[in-house]
């Protein structure tokens, strides 16, 4: 009984928000649950209470933020699902990518580099659009692997590749930012 609070804090992130563990997620419901929980546990709701309540509120609220951020972002959610299923994405240690993928990466980098050098805002924005579509497609595949086929090795590979795509997105973002300044 006395460990009840800890038990709840240790529930997996999906259970915390009353959701079934899956990559395809009802984001509206996730958000609603997150807000409902924060409405209970946020430090602002406990500011007038004693030290114990304030400390608990900070722990709970921190935990809810962490869980929400993990589930809200597709890549973080996929990583977390892999972890729940005893698989890891090994992004730092496993760097064996398929030659086709690496070739594709080089082409992306070249295109971004050219657009940057030419200070071509429209080109960069076009690339950003293409990249968004590509990422969306890959996320579809990731969903298949995680939710339908439950092929965690394939999912892990998809996560590793998506991380590269994510880096490209950042690079375009920074290039756009630099151009606008």
């Amino acid at each position, binding site marked *: 009984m*006395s460990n009840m609070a800890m038990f709840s804090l240790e529930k997996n992130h999906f259970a915390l928000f*009353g959701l079934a563990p899956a990559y395809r997620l009802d984001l509206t419901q996730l958000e609603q649950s997150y807000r409902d929980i924060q409405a209970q546990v946020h430090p602002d709701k406990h500011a007038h209470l004693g030290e114990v309540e304030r400390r608990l509120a900070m722990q709970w609220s921190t935990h809810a933020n962490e869980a929400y951020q993990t589930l809200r972002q597709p890549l973080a959610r996929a990583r977390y699902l892999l972890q729940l299923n005893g698989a890891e994405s090994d992004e730092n240690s496993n760097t064996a990518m398929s030659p086709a993928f690496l070739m594709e990466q080089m082409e992306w980098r070249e295109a971004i580099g050219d657009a940057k050098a030419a200070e071509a805002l429209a080109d960069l924005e076009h690339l950003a659009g293409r990249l968004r579509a590509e990422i969306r497609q890959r996320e579809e595949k990731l969903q298949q692997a995680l939710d339908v086929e439950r092929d965690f090795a394939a999912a892990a590979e998809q996560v590793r590749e998506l991380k590269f795509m994510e880096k490209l997105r950042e690079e375009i973002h920074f290039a756009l930012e630099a151009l606008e300044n």
Partner: protein
Amino acid sequence: MALLQIAEPGLSAAPHQHRLAVGIDLGTTNSLVATVRSSISVVLNDEDGRALLPSVVRYLADGTTEVGYAAQAMQSVDPHNTVVSAKRFMGRGVSDIAAIVNLPYQFVDAPGMVQLKTVAGVKSPVEVSAEILKALRARAEKSLGGELVGAVITVPAYFDDAQRQATKDAARLAGLNVLRLLNEPTAAAVAYGLDNAAEGIYVVYDLGGGTFDVSILRLSRGVFEVMATNGDSALGGDDFDHRIYCWVLEQTGLFALSAQDTRLLLTRAREAKEELTFHPETRITAVLSNGQAVDVLLTSKIFSEITLSLVNKTLAPTRKALRDANLGVEDVKGVVMVGGATRMPQIQRAVGEFFGQEPLNNLDPDKVVALGAAIQANVLAGNRSGDEWLLLDVIPLSLGLETMGGLVEKVITRNSTIPVARAQEFTTYKDGQTAMSIHVVQGERELVSDCRSLAKFELRGIPPMAAGAARVRVTFQVDADGLLSVSAREKNSGVEASVMVKPSYGLSDGEIADMLKASQQHAHDDMTARSLREQQVDGGRILEAVAAALAEDGELLNDAERGKIEERMAALRVTLEGNAPQAIKNAAEALNRATESFAGRRMNRSVQQALAGHKLEELES
């Protein structure tokens, strides 16, 4: 039979239940204090009916101070000892303020934060700010007729850890209990959101005296969410004054002015700026100390031209914030204007053009932040359940650690919702390395030298291992005020070190206590009396809270647990009758310990109840 009591008109029937709490807008140019009275947020005026307190402090040779209008009046006469815009120096070193030229102060380079030399001795910006807060506290206590339970103090969203810590230190020095440091734009949105029942994406454009903030907020179903924030902590209305001042020098061929003349012309420049809000042109006249007369005509067209780059400087962070929030101008439902400087027509025009809509101006841009802060203070003090809304704030700057080669590894990225904690693992660089230096920095740049250094501490006693074998887990925790604490732990040996990030120039508890003592004339008696009152208020509050919790969720306890809690409540009640602050404190802490697991169960239940509705929906679908 007891007679029925009837309260005087306008007074609450049960004043003892209402905890006195205020919202304070500690501004660069002006400060305000507001409170919620009969459910309405109002600014508290001074005895002459003025809402604004100029953020000006004058130090006199006898050690006394003048604050506000009295000090402002002496600005030209006694510029060295009259401190204006102290907020700009909060948590800032000499190198940070090097860009701020033509200031009539004698700066003293102290470790981390600059200090100012006055006739009353060397003063830190924290002490100057504390004088302003003291004046506001006195105004509030006089006007409300009692001691304050606490205050919400607003800070620019873009303030970094050092600046926030300095603000909190100033409040403590002024004897204020800080319920929360609240971002100014969020406070403004609270004031607007509640008054207008707004839903959607809002931009808060806040051009104050010395700082510019832009925040993107989402208001929906009672939740205020800061999606992104950006700004410039060294850009504000003062810079517009300064442009006018420079223009006057150009027009008249004046140079090398005395501090007093500089102050005089800057004051005239400010007046001209305010005139141009209502008139197409204004005449700037002054007689300098050498008898020379200044007389020039400034038109609003020229004013717009000489300040165009300043106006544009506000639009760059605005664009960045929109991009961080992944939004375009078409998504913005309204633009809330905050800060007296937004009254300038060229600002109104530029913002209107940028967003393609008229900015919102229904609340006084000088008061809106204080009004919102008061509303939040009322909730935090427990006067109102606050079920109606929730503020989910973010940190404005990324927090990270120095790694090999002077590079920054970000641990918590900017715009993360607070409170937030994140841990990252690091390892040793050399064989047999037994200590690790942890350097905490804040900022977006990749090089440590381009970021702000917050703290350095060492993790010692790591058992000698091969390079790369140690596993040091560094945990960052940012609380709801946006203040950081960092701890480090070596996993194999369990060696631990932690630091509450007190930036190198933050004040220690001891220093604050010393300053408090020094400022008290009847030091000992006052301190004891105050401490007793504080403990009594705290103890009473805890008793009240525990009693309410027992009434609400008592069934979560078995008889033995309940008995123990009641026993400690009784013990605390006994100490409250006496006059020993330490005894009250000990009894209150004992009660706190006894209720720890109860509090955990209650929190757990509230979360389950919050989700109960969804679980049903899930079963149905």
